[in-house]
């Protein structure tokens, strides 16, 4: 049996795929995975997963839509950082900053209010 191995370096990292091990069962796979994939690299945890238990979506398979086929660029946040809309937002932000600064200076001049 083939088991895919995912290694997590520290507690705050994601488990990343690092390779696989051949083993007759899960117990032996866990044993081998330690030597094969954690002996020389820091590991906080290993996921050892039977390969056949992994469900795969292949982009080349018929009927698979990874992101679709029509133009949906409007969904990207970066689209809002240029053009007329972006200029308006920027101007509005600047106005708010200015207003805030004005309020603050009025207050400090006003003494112990």
């Amino acid at each position, binding site marked *: 049996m083939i088991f895919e191995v995912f290694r997590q370096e520290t507690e705050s990292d994601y488990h990343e795929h690092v390779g696989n*091990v*051949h083993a007759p069962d899960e117990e*032996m796979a866990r*044993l081998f995975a*330690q*030597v094969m994939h954690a002996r020389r690299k820091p590991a906080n945890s290993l996921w050892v997963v039977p390969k056949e238990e992994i469900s795969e979506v292949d982009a080349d398979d018929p009927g698979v839509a990874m992101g679709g086929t029509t133009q949906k660029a409007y969904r990207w946040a970066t689209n809002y950082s240029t053009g007329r809309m972006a200029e308006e937002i920027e101007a509005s932000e600047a106005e708010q900053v200015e207003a805030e600064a004005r309020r603050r200076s009025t207050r400090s001049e006003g003494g112990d209010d």
Partner: protein
Amino acid sequence: MATEDTDTGPWSDRGFALGGPDELSEREQAAVEACLRALADDEFVLAERYTEWQVRGPTLEGDLAVANIAQDELGHARLWYDLLEDFGHTEPELIWERPPEDFRHATLVERPFARGDWADAVVRGFLYDEFERLRLDALADTEYPRIADRVGKVQGEEHYHREHARNWLERLAEGRGDPDNGHRRVQEAIDRLFPHALTLFVPTAYEPDIVEFGVRPAPLSELRQAWLDEVVPVLEDFGFRLPVAADAHPEAVDTLLPTARGRDGEHTDAWADLHDEFTFTYRQLDRSEAPRLMVDPDDADEGGDHP
């Protein structure tokens, strides 16, 4: 708290009956050395044998696992030989130039593997690692601070060895694929190796001092009983026949011992060949000292896993 104020090492919070290497009486030093030689030689020679499986294991993974275990055992041997160097012995004296009859390992670790007989490696690992656990547990109570300092480090790597041996044993016993073959090979390995495993517990002339001075407070006879209580039922539960019952009288167990017992320097015929093999390059290159690739264990991990 310790009353003596002689050292500030990591062991200073525990009192020890024995001092450092320079503070021992002649008899104490002889006992410490005898204890260390058995320890170091067992680990070193077993690692030499395990290494024969490198690139010959049953699978790539099994191969790497046993090579990894061999590397661990070599590392342990290094820790113990280093403590013998405290007494002025050099590495060539301790290993490369030492006559074969001066080695003090048990015969279990020197026996050759029949070609491709993986069950032999598994049974040997099982018998040895269960012994190793008991010996290390006993050494955790040592009165010699230099040993106490290193026991924990070795224990940390032994768990994997035991799990490895037991897992393989279980699978060979159950027989996946060809049940008769696996089971039969394990039984043959038990028949062949059990007497040699008993030599692990053969006391040397220094045994009374080793126990009295507390180098290893538990006597080997006690360790042997604990070992029999552990390994015999496990193997019997897997359906194997053992030459003795766990509660057999010590004298009955003694009758199983092979003629060569290792600890007194008398070894089996396989030992001369193995010794010749691992000293071959040293002699061929006409060496008189051993190059050191690694820093001394005392300097290796300052601030590491000391208590």
